[in-house]
């Protein structure tokens, strides 16, 4: 097991290497001088020269990439141009709301979507199934921010059940945290629920056609237990896969949702950085988000081995 995890950790290196290369090249290959892009529209030539020096732009490109990787490997994500603070420090400051929102969303989405998918599969072909699937495809189609504004309009402005925007840490006031996090969680969950519901339904339906389900029936097992005991565990692998892959969607959604609800998390940090063209922050956050994605999918691989004895490491 440890060897398996070690092996998978090693496999992460090339993926993150590609991400780093991409982020690096994106800045270098974009039209114009990276230093003046970074410095922004109002920078003096001296500023630009200072940034050139800071970024080591006078060295050959491969050397620059190597140096940058070296600093990255030490956990140094660079210095924010506007605040002059280390990017890693800024991320640490802003990570809590994002983590909270992502986890509440993940938990809420899975708790809603998996049962919905199972019900749809169980009632496949009936109006219940059709209604769930229509909801799912609609969930895919509504833009996160439009949904966010609709919810704010209805539940905050009209009904006044929830505060309009903002965030409170659960460690400060848990009740206030719940009131603040509810609408963002629902907003962000919808697309994720749609995704997981669809895959749950599909994999349960597929598994229910397997030979071993027929065997269980031939034993005289009741349909309910056939579903719960034989089908669900077998359907789990594709569901877990999609939950893992969906983290990319979740990260994208976090950026938007935080903007809509004015939550001071990483999403807002990156959006503000974009508006101010603070490239070290953008670079750093892309790297961090990619690492999170890769780590979550490593976790998914580890969960596979627990669910399925056939997967050897």
């Amino acid at each position, binding site marked *: 097991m440890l060897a398996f995890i070690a*092996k998978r950790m*090693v496999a992460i290196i090339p993926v993150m290497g590609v991400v780093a290369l991409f982020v690096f090249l994106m800045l270098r290959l974009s039209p114009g001088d990276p230093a003046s892009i970074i410095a922004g529209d109002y920078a003096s030539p001296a500023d630009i020269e200072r940034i050139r020096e800071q970024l080591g732009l006078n060295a050959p490109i491969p050397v620059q990439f190597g140096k940058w990787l070296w600093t990255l490997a030490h956990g140094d994500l660079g210095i924010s141009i506007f605040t002059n603070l280390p990017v890693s420090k800024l991320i640490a400051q802003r990570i809590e709301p994002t983590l909270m929102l992502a986890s509440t969303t993940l938990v809420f989405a899975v708790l809603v979507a998996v049962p919905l998918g199972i019900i749809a599969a169980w009632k496949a072909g009936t109006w219940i199934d059709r209604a769930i699937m229509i909801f799912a495809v609609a969930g895919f189609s509504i833009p996160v921010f439009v949904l966010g504004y609709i919810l704010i309009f209805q539940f905050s402005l009209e009904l006044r059940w929830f505060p309009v925007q903002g965030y409170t840490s659960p460690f400060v006031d848990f009740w206030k945290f719940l009131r603040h996090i509810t609408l963002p969680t629902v907003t962000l969950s919808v697309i994720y629920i749609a995704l997981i519901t669809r895959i749950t339904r599909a994999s349960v339906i597929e598994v229910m056609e397997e*030979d071993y389900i*027929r065997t269980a*029936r*031939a*034993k*005289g*097992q009741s349909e309910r237990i056939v579903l719960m005991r*034989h089908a669900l565990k077998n359907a789990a692998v594709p569901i877990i896969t999609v939950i893992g892959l969906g983290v990319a969607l979740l990260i994208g959604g976090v950026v938007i949702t935080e903007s809509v609800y004015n939550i001071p998390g990483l999403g807002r940090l990156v959006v503000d950085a974009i508006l101010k063209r603070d490239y070290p922050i953008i670079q750093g956050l892309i790297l961090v988000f990619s690492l999170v994605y890769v780590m979550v999918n490593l976790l998914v691989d580890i969960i596979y081995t627990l669910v399925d004895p056939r997967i050897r490491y």
Partner: protein
Amino acid sequence: MTSDQQAILDIRGLTVRLPARADRGNAIENVSFSVLPHEILCVVGESGSGKSVTAHTVMGLLPPKQLTATAGQVLLQGDDLLKKTPGEMRALRGARMSMIFQEPMTALNPLMSIGDQIEEILQIHTQMSAAESHGRMIEVMEAVKLPEPERLIHSYPHQISGGQRQRVMIAGALALEPILLIADEPTTALDVTTQAQILKLIKDIQRTHGTAVLFITHDFGVVAEIADRVVVMQHGLVVEQGEAKNVLTNPQHPYTRMLISSVPSMTPPKRPDTAAAPVVLETQALCKTYADRSLFRAARETRAAHNVDLTVRRGETLGVVGESGSGKSTLARCIVRLIDPTGGQILIDGHDIAGLSERRLRENRRLVQIIFQDPYRSLNPRRTVKASIIEGPMNFGVSKAEALTRASDLMTLVGLDPDALDRFPHQFSGGQRQRICIARALAMNPEVLIADEAVSALDVSVQAQVLELLDDVRKRFNLAILFITHDLRVAAQICDRIAVMYKGEIVEHGKAAEVFGTPSHDYTQALFNAAPGRDFEFGNFASA
């Protein structure tokens, strides 16, 4: 049939309707037969005969809404199963009647331990304590001769062999001493030696427990091996039934006569000597080793084929027989160079093609052609038969007009209408598609034809026709044929010489009559002894 015995299972006038838009109205129609206590009743028929539907109807396992029994009765000890509620059927399934299936790998839940799967049946139907059910489980596992049951219950299906998986299925099926065991092609997916063991097990259990067995099969060898009585089905109808001995030796219905006549004999016919003909294909020390490299452990090597030496002469058929995993298909694919051998030589007319580059190889591709097992995947479904046949010749500079003429000649030769060239593969039956594949191979004017299990997926009557065609084209074009098969009967009929493969190596090699008559290697002997119905000579009723 002795009339004083009450039948365990009595099927009377059973009709099962197919969904609308199927090729016929009913899956089975007016089917009547009964299974008596202490007997094995074989239901035999080709694909689409409705034998499996009949079995599933008895168990109440038909897919709901698609197939429904519309008439007749299914009496289990006089009790009509068609009138039972789903709950009542559940109480009967697994307890009073059990079923085992064709593919034991997929019939077992891959994520559940062997023990849990056997014990499940006890939990469903009894109130046994944990200790009691554990004891019973070990008892039935011993009864089906599973090794080390106490250790095995913690294993998962993928960790045990195919034969053991089927034993696990049988253990579960017998745990509650049912009065009826339904076996749906239970040995079809197994190798011949494993099949022999499982057949013996079913026979033994039937003797010792007095279980009545309804055994579904397509294989007359199996019928001859275990059946007390036989029911023959065709297109959803029962065409003949009776004592096994009577049906096998004196079939009445023309269809049964045709079927039995199609079963190839285990005794090779006399064949002309080909030793003087020139060698067309020769392999020398041919090897294929798969290396599974990994960062954290030493490379694992699998020797799929090792030091294979064989020769095929013009106008003769060399059979390569072996069980799954013996390396016989690897050998075929190496010779066609679909995979690259890791060692040795492949001489075609004396020229080595084993190490040729892709470009040089292409010039030699014409010489060796191959026919595959699965007729449904051997032709591109999106291209007409014509396009498939002329593709090869046109690769070698044959003009389209000439290729088309050749294609229509070949269609006639393989027994199909040349007008059918413009059709798509899905408009043909499996046997017809295999004929098209033969035509496609012949269009290349090959020197060597490789048939990789080319008749294994076909029903026995179609199989006989395709075998005849292959032998005919061999004579007509003086072809060298390398015939890969797991089926000893087929090999006996078509091959001049036989090579027996075991674990990647050829363990015995000789004239067909000699290998079948006096097998010398231990493995060959075991293999031949395992062939079902080996002592039974199937008569030829074709002319009668």
